[in-house]
């Protein structure tokens, strides 16, 4: 049995909108093993992104137990969660979320500002990450000078550079054409298989889910099934 990196037990998440209490996740139980590539699918409003935010330590559950990388996130303060995120998780967003005024290398260096690495070490590590995702030749280019696929590679390099064991990706191919999307998914697959990264992606794209080792379907805040797919 593989080591579990993500564990949810009876996790409930409610949001408050004005005076209204909006239930989003309803008593969720889930285990994700280290080294898995999990695709979360489901209609809009089903709770996929909320679940991803909980796993990534961006949000806290209303109740229930949430353990990621051996630590109880449901017991952490926002400051503790920030420190935890810096060391344990990398994020990839649909719209890349790169800093427009920084070049690719500086964008990738951002998480390393929270370490004690020297400037030259930070630059070297950022360049290594850009090389890993195949875009080192665009290191000095700003996001506005990159295509969507290239920008997403930079975002993946940023997620990798601090060597986090877990990558959470929210619609990473949602803004890309088919060819670029496949290249990004292939890259994620390599990171999963060859570099041992545990990856959780939220996607609407059934083809994207095919790159994962497991797909989970959500609806109305609950997991419908958990079928293991052939990679």
């Amino acid at each position, binding site marked *: 049995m593989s080591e579990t990196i993500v564990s949810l037990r009876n996790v409930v998440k409610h949001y408050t909108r004005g005076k209204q209490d909006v239930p989003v996740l309803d008593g969720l139980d889930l285990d994700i093993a280290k080294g898995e590539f999990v695709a979360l699918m489901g209609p809009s409003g089903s709770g996929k992104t909320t679940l991803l935010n909980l796993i990534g330590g961006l949000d806290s559950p209303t109740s229930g137990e949430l353990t990621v990388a051996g630590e109880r996130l449901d017991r952490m303060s926002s400051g503790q969660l920030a420190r935890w*995120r810096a060391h344990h998780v990398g994020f990839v967003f649909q719209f890349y979320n790169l800093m427009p*005024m920084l070049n690719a290398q500086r964008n990738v260096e951002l998480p390393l500002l929270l370490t004690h690495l020297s400037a030259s070490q930070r630059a070297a590590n950022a360049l290594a990450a850009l090389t890993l995702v195949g875009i080192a030749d665009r290191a000095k280019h700003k996001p506005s000078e990159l295509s969507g696929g290239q920008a997403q590679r930079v975002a993946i390099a940023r997620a990798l550079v601090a060597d986090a064991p877990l990558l959470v990706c929210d619609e990473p191919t949602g803004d890309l054409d088919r060819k670029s999307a496949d290249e990004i998914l292939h890259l994620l697959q390599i990171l999963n298989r060859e570099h041992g990264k545990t990856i959780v992606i939220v996607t609407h794209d059934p083809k994207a889910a095919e790159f994962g080792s497991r797909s989970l379907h959500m609806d109305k805040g609950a997991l419908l099934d958990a079928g293991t797919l052939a990679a």
Partner: protein
Amino acid sequence: MKYLPLLWANLWRKKTRTIFTLLSVAIAFLLFGALGTIDDTFENPRTGLTGVDKLITTNKFSLTLLLPFSDVQQIATVPGVAVVTWITWFGAYYQESKNFVFALPIDTPTYFDLHKDEFVVSDAEMAAFRNTRAGVLVNSALMKKFGWHVGQKLPLHSTIWTQKSDGSLDWTFDIVGTFAVKDATQAGQQASTVLFHYELFDEGRSFGKGQVGWLEERVIDPSQSGQIAQQIDALFANSPNETKTQPAKDFAMSFVKQFGDVGFVLRAILGAVFFTLLFLTGNTMMQSVRERTPELAVLKTLGFSDAKVVGLVIGESLLLCLLAAAVGLAASYTLIPVIRSVLQGVMTPPWLMPGGLGLAVLLALLVGTPPALRAMRLNVVDALMEKR
């Protein structure tokens, strides 16, 4: 320091806005430097009469009212007074009224005795001055300013004193030498000074003969200055020419106060400028942070704590204000010689640079704190949802 590239990049995110903000802050600090220097000059006037052993005696009611020359003899008898000399305001300019010249008719023996060791004059030039009735000693900076040379005639126009001979306000002197001052802090004030003989002035003027503008005394024991001043004034109590004797520095203060409370006016202007700046820069910072909400959310996502995000916003504000202040203060330093050409004795006060930078830090904290708090309170999930 490792955050500097990030701060710098953020600062220039909107170049035009940043340039205009920098300019407005820099101009405010240029005003701070220039007006602060003028204010300091009025608050701490440099009269050329430094030293605690100097007293000045004027008419009790107004500096413009003259005193009888006979007062000199009486004051000289006061115990503790070492030397007495006398001077009258000549009110001169060279060729055009903008070329102000601080021309002083002096009694040579007593003036140089009272100001012993304060001037640098060669023996030959001092001898030439003593032996030339229409001779003048000119500050070397003034000589250089107007390109004068020893041996030439110097025409000066007095705004007050007409000549007995022809009723003219134009007086002509012979430049016989130059002088400098030993005390560097006095150099600015003395830069426009021309010294000439009181005898020539007194005999040549068409009115006021036998009267003097003010008297200067050097006391033997500076600790007795207050008592001696009272004794001098007591000599002339209830006379038609009552006197007011005060330390040289106080005299200078009262002299500049004739212009009104310049310091208050200058400080009021600066206050208004910085009050306006507070809103202008504060609004710019707030707008800049508001526009970057998703980017700040990404930083938090990457693991930047609330404190670090606050630090980044405050840091950006500090960078903006300190950069602009440095530019503005440096520009104000270049203005000092221009101000000095119209206002004697102007010197850059030592507190100007540290005071200006301190003010810049205060400004940065005031304008940076509200957006920093907004950034701190930013909910990452909500902010990322906005971006979607």
